């Protein structure tokens, strides 16, 4: 595998013993934008969390490679330090921890992957300056960095804070999980533009979305459709457009097996 790629190979993932992903394959080169689509509950978030190494998402088969190296067994912090990032669909609140303090630790670790706990942090001045630049770009008030991480943030503020983190951490590959949801019209435009500016062609982006706007500013090179735990179709930007127009029913008819898996999973979920 060439350098500067993120690959998911025959990935099977279970949550609480329940199989969710059943053999996902995907390769993103740095500089590419991939859109990941699929109906609710099809496993998009699961794929992202598995790539980041969430302990509850058990990889039962297959592997994840970064720049040709198997990272399936690495801890989440090691993956982050190698350049992976995920903007979460539902970021969790960390009361009492200021966004700026947290980010300073995060930036120090990611930029100096060998850093151990208690070792030097990135100099305060340098960090503040950069943080301010990025916050200006995202039209965030400087005071916002003094708030506790995601604690009492509005839906839109939360998503913006995720983009801010991406901007500061400058990952090689970023997964954006519905970073456009919960934002008002203007905020979606701003978010889409900033993602284009920050991510642009420097990163490899995997964009999970149900809307068009984000993809308008970040036109995908490749579009994947997840259904029943498998990628059933891969295409170009026109595939995303078609799905936005038509929805998923035609795909379900075309792939009855995957549709059956989807129904089975949904049924299980209801128990």
């Amino acid at each position: 595998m060439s350098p500067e790629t993120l690959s998911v190979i025959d990935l099977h993932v279970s949550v609480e013993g329940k199989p969710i992903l059943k053999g996902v394959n995907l390769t993103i080169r740095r500089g590419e934008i991939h859109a990941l689509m699929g109906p609710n509950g099809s496993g998009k978030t699961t794929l992202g969390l598995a790539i980041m190494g969430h302990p509850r998402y058990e990889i039962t088969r297959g592997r994840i490679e970064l720049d040709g190296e198997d990272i399936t067994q690495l801890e989440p912090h090691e993956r982050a330090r190698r350049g992976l990032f995920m903007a979460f669909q539902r970021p969790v609140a960390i009361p009492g921890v200021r966004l700026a303090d947290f980010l300073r630790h995060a930036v120090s670790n990611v930029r100096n992957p060998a850093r151990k706990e208690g070792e030097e942090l990135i100099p305060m001045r340098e960090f503040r300056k950069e943080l301010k630049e990025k916050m200006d770009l995202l039209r965030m008030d400087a005071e916002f960095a003094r708030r506790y991480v995601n604690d009492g943030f509005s839906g839109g503020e939360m998503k913006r804070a995720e983009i801010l983190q991406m901007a500061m951490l400058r990952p090689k590959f970023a997964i954006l999980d519905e970073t456009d949801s919960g934002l008002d019209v203007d905020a979606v435009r701003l978010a889409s533009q900033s993602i284009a500016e920050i991510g642009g062609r420097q990163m490899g982006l995997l964009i999970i979305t149900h809307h068009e706007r984000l993809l308008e500013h970040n036109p995908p090179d490749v579009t994947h459709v997840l259904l029943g735990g498998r990628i059933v179709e891969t295409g170009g930007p026109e595939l995303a457009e078609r799905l936005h127009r038509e929805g998923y029913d035609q795909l379900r008819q075309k792939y009855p097996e995957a549709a059956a898996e989807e129904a089975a999973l949904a049924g299980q979920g209801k128990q």
Partner: protein
Amino acid sequence: MAEKVDVIGEINKYDFRVDERYVFKAQKGLNRDIVAEISAMKNEPQWMRDFRLKALEIFESKPMPTWGGNIDIDFQDIYYYIKPTERPGHSWEELPEEIKKTFDRLGIPEAEKRFLAGVKAQYESEVVYGSLREDLAKRGVIFVDMDTAVREYPDLVRQYFSTVIPPTDNKFAALNSAVWSGGSFIYVPPGVNVEFPLQAYFRINAAQMGQFERTLIIVDEGASCHYVEGCTAPMYSSESLHAAVVEVIAKRGARVRYTTIQNWANNIYNLVTKRAVAYADALVEWVDGNLGSRLTMKYPAVYMLEPGARAEILSVAFASRGQHQDAGAKVIHAAPHTSSRIVSKSISKSGGRSSYRGLVKIERGAKKSKSNVVCDALILDPQSRSDTYPYIELEEQDVMIGHEASVSKIGEEQLFYLCSRGLTEAEASTMIVAGFIEPLVKELPMEYAVEMNRLIALQMEGSVG
């Protein structure tokens, strides 16, 4: 990993070597002669001597508390008085490497380190802070150690001493009354606002306060002050009992904040009675952080005696292996339109135990009073324990009372979130714990806040994985 868990805990096991030449050959144990001798050695007036002897009788007549934690003390096996200047000394070089390291890692300045470690018996605080004292003196503020106060301000002391906490209050208050030594005396005249925290500058004295210090603070009408005691460096003592008494009087419209951060060695029983009275529209705030010790029993109290009086009590306890923190708060609403807020946070780790014990009492006639209690416990591992004992006594119906309690573990989702940004699990846990006690830390003077965070990091070391 388990062996690394408690840097501080491990250090506490070391015994200091004592240089024989400096040891004060006092008698162990407690009786009338010893109490009389303490009084004589301090050149005290008759009334204080009588007070001590009476307190001794009360101490002897009182049973041990039957609640709280297990207290296993042989009162006859303790030295009750050692002259500060004759304290056992030792050289910096003699100190165990671990202790020196702890000081370094807490970022304690060099000069203070030596003092805190007991290497130097006296610190040149007079030289460094002399001008500060002068400034205070000009405005009529009295800030001296309690022994000096008894000699130099007999009228003031006699008027207020033990009026808030009489020896009859509890066994350990009686003990303190009999053998007290050291502590601070503060008087702030009407309308004077002391803008910098007292003792933050003199905190060096904290380590010398000894086992039975006695503090009395009187803030007169419309005046204000913030007193800070203790420090985050572990405090060593050859004796295993610390029984302090702190009395605070906040007159009409006064504001007093009393901040304590203490980190006792693992062999210490830390049994402290702290109480304030608040008159009309006065505000009393206790900010109390307890780390270390074998058993701490401490419930800062505020008696709101007149309308409009307010109380804020913020307490944080961190219990690690072999430690029991029984901490909490007491608020007595004795007048209408009084209000109180209690926030208690506890962290238990490596088999440590922390309890919140609190009393909210609304007396008859204290209409329209308000009280709100929030206690949150964080338990870091299954061996550790946390309990809550909230007591509420209502003699009045026309009041507003709130009580919330929560017990939590460090959330998997929170850990993952932080780790996904490059923090190790240990670093993430420390950050979550620091966030948990942030409500206390943000109330601390800057240098204490910084040390407190370092201390938490130290306590958390090796606790994951």
